[in-house]
């Protein structure tokens, strides 16, 4: 069996390769969407980490300064 026969698959190549190809691309796209979402979440967690003052104390200091 040569390569051309392998890719042609007895005239079923189009259906077989499109099936495997779209499956592969769809899986990669969802994984990419996850990694894009991860970037967003990392920024969210870091922004919360910066805000070190506990909520309760914040309220108290605000009341005192008033």
């Amino acid at each position: 069996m040569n390569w051309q026969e392998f890719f042609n698959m007895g005239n079923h190549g189009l259906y077989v390769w499109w099936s495997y190809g779209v499956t592969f691309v769809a899986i990669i796209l969802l994984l990419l969407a996850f990694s894009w979402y991860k970037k967003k979440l990392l920024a969210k967690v870091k922004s919360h980490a910066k805000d070190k003052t506990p909520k309760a104390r914040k309220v108290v200091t605000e009341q005192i300064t008033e």
Partner: protein
Amino acid sequence: MANASKSFGRWFHQLGSPKWFYQKSAKWLPWLWIATAVLLAFGLYYSLFASPVDYQQGNSVRIMYIHVPAAALSMVGYLAMAICAVIGMVWKMKMSFMAMRAIAPVGALFTFICLFTGSLWGIPTWGTWWEWDARMTSELVLLFLYLGFIALHSSFNDRSKADNAAAILALVGAINIPIIYGSVKWWNTLHQAYSVTKKGAIAPEMQTPLFIMIAGFYLLFAIMVIIRLRLEIMNREAKSKWLQEVIS
């Protein structure tokens, strides 16, 4: 016995802890990726190259090696989602609701793969890419259930309301799973009857690669759910000190 139930209790308790899961799953993922890569490498070699051609369908039978695993996972995934919904509602276990939310996009992906490859397989085999028969219609309903679940969950601002409403949808929609499974038995469908594990119904040279691909797809599904679940933990525990320490 008492020891076994005690260790199960501890395991269940740990699984309920986002912190424990987030830290442990980071160690599981590389091994899961290796196992998946090995299984899929063998599976793809056999399914595209080393397995025999079907005497009626020719090479188009090779679509089976991704269509059947995707179909299996689309249903198993939904059942897992419904089980998480029950655990979340009954025991108020927050990790369970997070897992439920994490399964939805992965389940939708596998349902899409099942429908897409099935359509392509249908063109040379049945002469049509779609027929409104019971199997195909109920699988399409499954895709809409997954997408509806995601849409419903994201339509609430209040997370606990979102979890509970989506959990009810997941639970009610679970009725569709036995319908998909039984459709080829109960109705006269264009889709063929179940044959994957039936004795003598499928040649061993096809069954073995199919099982390898099913195992690979199960692991891939698990990996993708774990990745999404870790993101869900990041989203919901963004204010937790332990997470901020792990990330920085």
